[in-house]
């Protein structure tokens, strides 16, 4: 009795602390982890668990968070030295040095609402309903260069601040999976059809900025080119001159948002697993090949603008007896208003064009070698592509089923040049399985220094395990 309460308390504590932590994108450590039904998330043909029935309850079967960035927070903010050793200081110089020509910050999260899988002879059927959010911000290094250096070093040039991309969308995934064994169980092919219902999206088709500083410094030319699409339960507000004046979300209702209909899409997962030899298994999959067409609550804005600043003209602000005298304070106000109006989109630049959001696609290629009955080693290459951002992760893992109810995996991943040590654990308590997996456990100790981390935690109910 006391032991049961101890277990429940510990489990609850782990759950609680797990929910409070930041976690990662799709885990590469997860794929070859033994006894994990969630391995099918990375390859619909891969079933590392032999249970006949797998049930995932809402919110419990696998909450995942993923964070990927081309830089770490520590690159930008870190402890100071000397008199500032007790403070956190900004280090733009260092941050700038760490940037690539194009940089991204991504956040992916998923919250399962329901998962059901069952095995029938050689087939496996699954049904999953999951809430997912994908967020990505991209920017070019030249933007930070400009902020750091100012425009003085670029006199006579039309400095391109690069592209800025903000792509984020939330959707509900209704996934139907099927896999079957062929060739005397040597080959398993799986497919998952996902019906996607988009809830909201923000997509920058194009957002560019340039700053031209005249060679004689007589003017600055600020040019912007924006093409933004939004699908959200908000309306655009305009001022009395029909300029953009903000968004109105007063009519937002969470229920309407979550039950949004009309933004539909399809995605597919394809996977195959082939036992080359009794000890060597090869696998390959492509995940989230698809898109969502957003057609409801649309706001599209195309705004191209050039603003030339050549100083405030005081010609009519010197002699206040003249009829065309303008007060100097009004001059600045007028110029500021002119600049604001210049960059503010007009009502005529808004529309309601439908747009598509492509899901981040992952390609997993790998294989395992069974060292013995309880331990194998795996090697996996994950190619991740989301818009212009692509990332390659190579993971080497060791996966052990230590006993009937406990499996452990350790991994080493190189994610676009950064090294990460991953860990996965699954523990079975009767029909209930608790699991945790992360591709970068060391990052958990100091997230400010990490560029990539993910975390998946959950609970499954497994029945009829072989």
């Amino acid at each position, binding site marked *: 009795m006391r032991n049961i309460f101890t277990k429940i308390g510990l489990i609850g504590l782990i759950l609680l602390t797990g929910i409070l932590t930041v976690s990662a994108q799709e885990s590469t450590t997860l794929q070859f982890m033994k006894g994990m039904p969630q391995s099918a998330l990375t390859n619909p043909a891969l079933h590392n668990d032999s249970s006949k029935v797998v049930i995932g309850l809402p919110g419990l079967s696998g909450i995942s968070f993923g964070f990927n960035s081309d830089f770490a927070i520590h690159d930008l903010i870190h402890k100071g030295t000397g008199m500032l050793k007790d403070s956190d200081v900004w280090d733009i110089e260092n941050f700038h040095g760490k940037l690539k020509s194009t940089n991204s910050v991504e956040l992916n999260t998923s919250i399962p609402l329901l998962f059901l899988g069952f095995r029938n002879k050689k087939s496996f059927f699954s049904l999953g309903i999951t809430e997912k959010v994908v967020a990505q911000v991209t920017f070019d290094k030249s933007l930070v260069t400009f902020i750091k250096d100012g425009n003085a070093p670029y006199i006579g040039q039309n400095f391109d601040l690069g592209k800025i991309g903000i792509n984020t969308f939330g959707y509900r995934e209704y996934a139907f999976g099927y896999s079957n064994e062929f060739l005397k169980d040597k080959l398993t092919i799986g497919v998952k059809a996902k019906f996607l219902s988009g809830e909201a999206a923000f997509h920058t088709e194009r957002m560019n900025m340039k700053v031209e500083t005249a060679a004689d410094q007589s003017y600055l030319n600020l040019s912007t080119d924006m093409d933004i699409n939004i699908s959200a339960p908000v309306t655009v507000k305009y001022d009395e001159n029909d300029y953009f004046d903000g968004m109105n979300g007063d009519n937002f209702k969470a229920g309407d948002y979550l039950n949004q209909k009309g933004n539909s899409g399809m995605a597919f997962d394809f996977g195959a697993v082939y036992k080359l030899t009794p000890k060597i298994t090869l696998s390959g999959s492509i995940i989230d090949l698809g898109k969502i067409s957003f057609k409801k609550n649309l706001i599209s804005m195309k705004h191209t603008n050039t603003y030339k600043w050549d100083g405030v003209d005081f010609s009519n602000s010197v*002699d206040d007896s003249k009829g065309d005298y303008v007060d100097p304070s009004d001059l600045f106000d007028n110029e500021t208003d002119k600049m604001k109006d210049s960059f503010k989109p007009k009502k005529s630049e808004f529309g309601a064009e439908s747009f598509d959001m492509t899901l981040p696609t992952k390609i997993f290629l790998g294989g395992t070698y069974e060292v013995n009955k309880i331990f194998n080693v795996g090697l996996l290459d994950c190619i991740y592509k989301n818009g212009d951002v692509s990332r390659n992760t190579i993971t080497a893992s060791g996966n052990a089923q230590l006993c009937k109810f406990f499996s452990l995996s350790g991994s080493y991943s190189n994610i676009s040049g950064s090294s990460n040590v991953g860990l996965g654990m699954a523990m079975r308590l009767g029909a209930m399985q608790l699991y945790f997996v992360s591709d970068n456990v060391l990052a958990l100790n100091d997230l400010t220094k990490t560029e990539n981390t993910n975390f998946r935690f959950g609970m499954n109910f497994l029945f009829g395990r072989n």
Partner: protein
Amino acid sequence: MKKSPLFLCLVLLLFLANSCNLDSLDFNKLSDDLNLNPEVVAPLATADITVWDLIHSANNNNDDVITKDPTTGLVKIVYKQDNLYTYNVRDFLDFPTQQSLSADNKALGEVSPSDVSVSRKVTLQEMTETLPGAVNNVAAFSGQTIIFQPYSFTGPTVIYGVNPFSDFTSVTLSKGTLEVKLENKLKIPITIEGILYDKTKQANIASVAFANIQPSSTSTQPFTLDGKQLSNQIEFRLTKFTTPGSNPGTVLIDLQDYFNMTFSMKDLKVSAGNLMVKAQTLDESKGIMSFSFPEADLKAFSTVLKKGTLTFKSTNTSNLTGSINITLPEIKKNGTPVTATIPLTGNSSSIDLAGANINFASDATKPYNQVPYTYTVQVNKSSTYIDYVSTQTIKMEVTLTNLDFKSISGDFGKQKINIAQGVFDMNVEMLDKINGSFKLTDPKLNLIIHNPIGAPATVNLDFSATNKKNESVALKPNPFNLPVPADINSGTKTETVTFNKSNSNIVNFIALPPTGKITYSGLVDFNSGTTPITAANPNFLDLDAPFSIDLAMDLPLQLQTKDLAFSDTTKITGSDYDKIETADLVLTATNGLPLDIDIQLAFVDTNTHKQIGVSTKSKILTSAQVNATDNSITPVKSTNTFTLTKTDLENLRKSNSIVFTGFVSSPSAGTSVATIWSTSKIALSVVIKSKVNL
């Protein structure tokens, strides 16, 4: 044993889960300093302005002071002070408010009675009764026609009484004529001699003799009465009566036949006597009355009165009654001499003299301060005998009251007007803002004199200017002649007297500059010369016209100056500049103004009255080029940088005000003249290059 791995895994899971932390990032300890120091270049301001725009803005509280020539566009400081000095012209001379003019006592002179005439008819009957021999006893032949026999009577005197003269009882005649007329109504020629005899005076008046007067004939004899004293009691004393008779003819003897003697006195002038005066006009009398002015030296030739009242009064020592018609021929109202009729003894009613002209110069011997008069006495016919003496007098008095003079001409004598010390302040805002001096090449000080006084005068006037440091400079203008109107009808003479660099110290006067008080004083000296003042060339004065002097300074901005400083203080909030590490202001200008301008900033704390720091003095505008030959201006393009160093910006952040000081120099380091044209342009652009600290 089985439980141990489970327990260990749970602990490991718990550890891993809880080790996910961001404790190394405490946003509460995150520094506000971004450690970002971009260098920014941006155009700050442009201006394409004229010099006139700048000047106008610097002097916007007294716009009228700085103007531009409408033709050339040359900028000038124009200062005008109307009525710098005013003088009440009525204080120039003292004028009487009333005058009493008296004519001398005047003898009335002779009066005239009416012409008188009495007759004495002597009939034949009376002759027979009074003459010896009864005229040959002709009475006995009455009614008969006979030859009238010759008769001769030669005495003794036979007296025939005559009726007395009716118009006098006794007179002394200065003049007169006695006419004796014999009318023979006898039928025989007669010769009569006799004497008209004054019974009272017992004197012969006239001896008459008529010879051989034919029947029905008349004969007259005149006699002068000049100087005679007569009474009205007279008789005719016959001394001779002869007739040759009618022989050979016969005549009807009518005893009523007569001869008639008529005694007529005419044109009598009585110098004394008791008589009945007929209505007559006595001889006109004339005279001169003298005007008395308080100014001893004033010789008035004429005047026009604004107002005044004239009354006449006469006094009369005789018993005559009548009236006096008096005329003042040189006091004219509407061109008509003033006249009045007053009783011989009495007063006239008041005569309004408003607008009357008085000519004091009609007497060639003394052509000033006098007015002539004439009067005639109209004597009424007396109803009774009155005693009269021609030396009895009448006296005229003329009284002028409530006198107010409008204008006067004459010789005013030597007069002076002391211009008491006065003071004014030019109050030119632009001058108040400068330190240092500048020399204008052609400044002028104009006195606009409004003078109604028609008398030559010399004016000695001086001005003394001070500046804020109480240094002073005197103008020292040359004395000048007061502009004078041509004549009394010309009104006020307005003329401008100009002081420039050739006749005064005005260049140094303005170079002070006169930012403090300007004091003035002077003297106007009239008639100090030797030219005589005559009626043909009089002094004159319109007492209603004002005397005033306006002052106008005309200061064209053609100047030489070196480092003339303009200062202005602006409040700032130092913390607004926290993010600026250094700043360069790059001024690119095409300057059409022929002045070099440098600028220096002083950072001050007005609370502690301390200057925290001062920037380097830097040129911001390069002077336009001036052609030495024709003074034409060629704009110059230049680029100058005004730098605020780190130290300057630190000082800026500590201060609450900035004192902007601009230093202005004319071309060639202040040795050339800069002409400031209102149309000169300055095209300016300012670019800021700044390192900011975010």
